[in-house]
């Protein structure tokens, strides 16, 4: 059984009486531990598909199954738990909360959890500092987003996606603001997490070179999915 499977998923928006088909009957199956890249032109439906897979946008039709369970059959709390326990999001933008420090932004996904420790018994705060060290920001843990460069903010957001030990990372152009060297570092970091911990990656990118590093490549064209 595939870890993540969609069955003719569509997303149709109505804008000013006109129907926009952002995602058109996409059926994919992704196995646990795969590293998938998703390419396509702007407006091709990549971000919408990623949002549907992550449980933050309900499709107009079709189903999304994670480990065999229809995630949109869950109620609002169930979907939140799915996102909290299974998913790590990296958005197109840095997506940090301006009033929180780098470390606090990392703690956001675990803020509402009853325990202050993760499954391995490690304090969330220790895990946050560890992750910030892994993305090269160990000396900026108490810096606010306004005190960080765009690239540093990106790396904080990348680190945050791993905070809840997710099984699936949904990354929407996560290295967009990074210089080449840091981008390469982050890709190595992704690769390590993928290989060492078996985390599944779906990486949206315009960069064909980055896409080429993925084990499996998919392309979105006018809302439809094409395997490459």
């Amino acid at each position, binding site marked *: 059984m595939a870890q993540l499977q969609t069955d003719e998923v569509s997303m149709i928006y109505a804008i000013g009486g006109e129907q926009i088909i952002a995602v058109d009957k996409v059926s994919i199956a992704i196995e646990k531990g795969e590293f998938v890249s998703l390419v396509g032109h702007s407006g091709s439906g990549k971000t919408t598909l990623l*949002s549907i897979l*992550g449980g*933050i*946008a*309900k499709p107009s039709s079709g189903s999304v199954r994670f480990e065999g369970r229809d995630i949109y059959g869950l109620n*609002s*709390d169930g979907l*939140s*738990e799915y*996102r*909290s*326990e299974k*998913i790590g*999001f990296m*958005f197109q933008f840095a*997506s940090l*909360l301006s*009033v*929180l420090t780098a*470390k*606090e932004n990392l*703690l*956001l*996904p675990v*803020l*509402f959890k009853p325990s*202050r420790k993760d499954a391995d018994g490690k*304090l*969330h*705060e*220790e895990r946050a*500092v560890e992750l910030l060290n892994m993305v090269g920001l160990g000396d900026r843990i108490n810096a606010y987003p306004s005190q960080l460069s765009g690239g540093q903010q990106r790396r904080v957001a990348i680190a*945050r996606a791993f905070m*809840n030990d997710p099984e699936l990372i949904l990354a929407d152009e996560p290295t967009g603001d990074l210089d080449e060297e840091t981008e390469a570092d982050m890709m190595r970091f992704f690769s390590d997490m993928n290989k060492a911990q078996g985390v599944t990656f779906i990486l949206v990118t315009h960069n064909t070179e980055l896409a080429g590093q993925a084990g499996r490549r998919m392309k979105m064209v006018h809302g439809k999915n094409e395997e490459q």
Partner: protein
Amino acid sequence: MTNDFSVLSFAIKNVKRRPLRTAMLVLAITLLTAVLVFALSFIYRVHASIQIMTSRLGADIIVVPTGSRGAAEDVLLENKVKSFYMDQDILEKVSKIDGIEKMTHQTYLVTLSSLCCSVPESLIIAFDQDSDFIMKPWLKGKIDRKLGKGESIVGHESSFNISVGLVEVDSVLFGNVFKMVGVLDKTGTGLDNAVFISDDNISDIVKNSDLPIKPGQVSIIFAKIKEGFSHRKVANAIEDSIIEVDAVTGKDIGRSIINTLRDISGIFSMTIALASILSIFLAWTVFSAVANERSQEVGIMRAVGAKESHVMGLFFIEVLLIGAVGSTAGIVFGTGLSVLLAKSFTILKNISSDLRAVERLAVAVIGFVAGTGICIIGALVPIRRIKKMEPLTAIKER
């Protein structure tokens, strides 16, 4: 390594984001709560004073000369210095009314001029020691004997007592020397500001002063009613059979003040209602702006796993923080105002009783719940709106 990042610390950071806007809302809640606390303290204090007075008076009915009811209430409730008289034969007429169990009388004398007396303007109450049941409970333990001729005892708050600061002194009242032999316990009534003498002294006082009192006149009759008799019916029977008097039941004492109080309460209620509407509107406006500004953040929070209830909880903590700070400041401000301005209101100026700690606490609790509650009501709609937003929709609203 300690984790000091919590939902509360997150909420505090959010509240501090826009200090001016937060301060405006806090100020509105402060003013609303202050008005409420001031109004409640005011009304509560007058009510409490009347209740204390009637319960401590020890009489079921008071009988005063026709038209002197207001003056009697001024003396008993507001510690005012007033005198009024009726002939002593009325005592006998009242005693014949069916239902009267026992009665006593007092005569009010006013030390108007420094020529007559060595004390500041005061009310001197001459009472009949044989029939008295009004003073007796308060005199017990203070002086375990009858007051002799030429002896007096002073009320707890009496200006004379305060100015002298001690007893066992001689003073001149209406040309007669009186020895102060004791201080009455605090009664919480108009008696606290008076000086008490036995009515054996009245004939000498009348002889030696220019007081507008004739021999044998009294000011007020206090009556106890037999069990099973209606106080109101007995009072009506007194008024029907004795045209020269007004009879007031214990429950009706202070009615004119209560009626005035009702009008004042109406004004307070209207002010509080308007302030509440304004505060609700302000809270709604502020939290609508907050919801719009932070919709993307809420979307991100939801995307990383926060439930609707978590988002609601965070916003409610923020509302509670603002409401709690505003309400607390309002309680302090309102209580301070009620204490400071008490002397500026005639109705309060002469009332001897103040609110007890438990009553002040009750007013504070009401103020806190109302102030915070108004803030919550105002913020409810914007918070519910943002809670219901789909994460992706919220994230895109930037």
